[in-house]
């Protein structure tokens, strides 16, 4: 069986195998190619300001895609993240008007924890399919938010300065404008990557997604893992909401909804299996960057809206398929 090492391997195969062992490489190459295309179409567009903007918009998407990555590892999905983020953002913006910031923050995170808990119990204890469970809670959440909106019409809304600073601000370091959102994102991403790779909880996510019965026989209590997972996912979504309201600066009742499907797409492009047990967060981050750059690219191409959507769909499909091909080589 060791003979394969002796026979010379053709160069093409070697490249493929190299990429298969480092699945991030092809993703990064794709990202670079997209940026180059952008630069060719609009010379000069790739400048400091553009990079900062792209990062700013990719971060909320990347965090939500992190929620999808973690839930997808267990074979689930969290479609309530859009609603949760919107709720946190809206509650923050309306409560800050006449509340202490700390209390407003706690109030804003409350629905996140609650929805996460309900999702977790529904999926973990009652074994409701995550797709249905999270769709249901997002419907309920949206309804509650609308009822809540009635009660605050009179008092108006305000974006806390701190969130605006975090969402839109940049800090020049050695001549380059770093978006402040990175202050939040870098530690968060590091934490997620570490959790998945080096903690018991991360191990359990992979194992539960792979074979739930086996984990049960090993003493794992499924409902605990799932509940902790969906609460984590919801809390992350809530934090994203706060960041996003700082970026958009306009509270609306559907603020983060448009991010939901792209967040699933980003996780999938990043190589996480929707069936569970396989994937990681680094790929997801690059997936989010790819989608953000792609959106810019399609905006710049002067095409009818219909053609743009067709192109978006085809590219997502093509990228996922190509990536699967490369990684399967292993």
């Amino acid at each position: 069986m060791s003979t394969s090492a002796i026979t010379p391997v053709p160069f093409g195969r070697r490249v493929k195998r190299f990429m298969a062992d480092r699945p991030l490489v092809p993703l990064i190459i794709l990202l670079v190619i997209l940026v180059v295309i952008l630069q060719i179409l609009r010379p000069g567009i790739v400048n400091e300001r553009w990079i900062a903007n792209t990062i700013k918009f990719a971060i909320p998407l990347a965090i939500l895609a992190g929620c999808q990555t973690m839930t997808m590892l267990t074979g689930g999905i969290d479609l309530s993240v859009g609603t949760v983020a919107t709720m946190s953002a809206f509650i923050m913006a309306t409560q800050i008007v006449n509340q202490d910031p700390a209390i407003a923050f706690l109030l804003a995170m409350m629905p996140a924890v609650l929805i996460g808990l309900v999702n977790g119990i529904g999926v973990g204890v009652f074994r409701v399919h995550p797709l249905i469970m999270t769709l249901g809670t997002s419907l309920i959440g949206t309804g509650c938010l609308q009822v809540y909106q009635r009660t605050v019409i009179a008092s108006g809304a305000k974006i806390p300065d701190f969130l605006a600073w975090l969402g839109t601000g940049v800090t020049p370091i050695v001549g380059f404008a770093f978006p402040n959102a990175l202050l939040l994102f870098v530690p968060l991403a590091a934490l997620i990557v570490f959790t998945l790779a080096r903690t018991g909880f991360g191990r359990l996510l992979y194992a539960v997604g792979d074979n739930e019965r086996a984990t049960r026989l090993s003493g794992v209590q499924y409902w605990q893992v799932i509940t902790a997972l969906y609460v984590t996912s919801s809390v992350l979504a809530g934090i994203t909401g706060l960041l996003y309201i700082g970026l958009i600066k306009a509270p609306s009742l559907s603020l983060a909804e448009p991010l939901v499907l792209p967040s699933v797409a980003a996780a999938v492009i990043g190589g996480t299996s929707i069936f569970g047990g396989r994937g990681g967060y680094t790929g997801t981050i690059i997936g989010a960057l790819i989608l953000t750059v792609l959106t810019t690219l399609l905006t710049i191409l002067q095409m009818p809206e219909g053609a743009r959507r067709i192109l978006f769909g085809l590219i997502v499909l093509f990228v996922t398929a190509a990536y699967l091909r490369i990684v399967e080589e292993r």
Partner: protein
Amino acid sequence: MTTSPLLDATGVAKNYGAVAALRNASLSVLPGEVHALMGANGAGKSTLVKILTGAIQANAGRFLIRGEARDIRSPAAARRAGLLPVYQEPSLIPDLDVLSNLRLTGTPVEPFRAWVRELGIADLDLRDTARDIPLAVLRVLDLARALAVEPDVLLLDEMTAALPANLAEKVLEVVRRQGDAGRAVIFISHRFVEISALCDRATVLRDGETVGVVDIVPGVEEKIVELMLGTRIVKTHVAARGAAEKAAPAPARPRIAVKNLRVGTKLNDVSFDLRDGEVAGVVALEGQGQDELFAALAGSIRPSGGTIEVDGQQAKFAHPIDAIRAGIAYVPGDRSEALAMQRSVRENIALPFSAALRNWGPINMRKERDTVLGAIKRLQIDTRAQGEVQRLSGGNQQKVTIARWIAADARTILCFDPTRGIDVGTKQEIYKLLRELAGHGKSVLFYTSELEEVQRVCDRVIVIFGGRLVDIFPVEEADEPALMRAAYGLPRGAKADVGILAAPNASEPGATP
């Protein structure tokens, strides 16, 4: 022999990435013969069967069916060519009832019914959903479904491995008659008794290569084992218990005391003790309640009556975690039930460490590696395919499921048929390991479908029939006929004819036409 082969495969090769499952395998089967395909775990037997029946494609190889070159591209094509398999795993569609399963494969119903009856299952409702049917019965249905279309070549991959003795015996009878009727059977089994009772010739595989074709004559076993294992040393008598071990004084109170245990209608009023430092064997025919007994002790299901005492304390298990906390670990017979197949060997072995809420934090990687490596070494797991457990062979997968509990240092291990479908070499290792565990003061409850193993490994035998405890006796009194009689619910001492397995050497090898 002048007859031309019914099926002739030569130079078959199959690679899974860097792993060569088959390198240069060949197989030639004559009409009317029952042909054994033998080899250690991972030798490539299942792979060859899958290739011959179109379930996977070979990378190389030449296939002749009745002298004609054929390319078998799909299971449907194999079926048309008269090749029908019964795979190692059941292949009825779980959510369809039996009747629909028959319609799906175009199997005639009446012959199927007749075969099912012949194979010893009297009360099958064709409208039962496959998912609700016990594993052993499913295997028999798979066989009956294959028989019903009267294939030219029947390929049985460890058909008898998951079967209780009564069903296995029926299967063997039927298979032998197939040979007599001029059809061919390719028969995979790790049980020499069956091979010598049934087969005419054997093809032996080692590391994906055919290393010999032998006629089955009395005394050929040694030769086959030699071929199978190459230079590996076998048949060291590990199982014999040392005298010192035996002399150890019995502890004051049992490790586990089961009293009047009842589970639904399947298990009734069962009481026995399990002591530290002993291996207790459970002997039962298929479906006599042993599954429920193990599941209840492992905390997988809740008993409906009776008590389980651990170290003198009454225990209530609501979840496997409770049993694990009490030091009781369960190794299921079905490996796919115990392993996260896409994860690494290391993660699978370390899985119980992360289970408890307080161990969800950062992992001490060095400590984990040392523990895992220790267990791997102790069980001599072949970890060339480290990355994903699903790439290990069946035997090595089984070792991983046991290694997990060695690493976690469980005090009591419940082993449910751990040697199912495992080659002789590995089996020996497992026997040795169980004895060693007992030697270190651990206790083992051991169910096996092979009676011979009971004598080799156990100190005491617990016999269950119809959900009730029949007898408990020391291993010294447990010769095979005695066990067999007890397993059929007959009182000790009574005489009864229990079929060919009781006296395997009495039957002649099937005659070639």
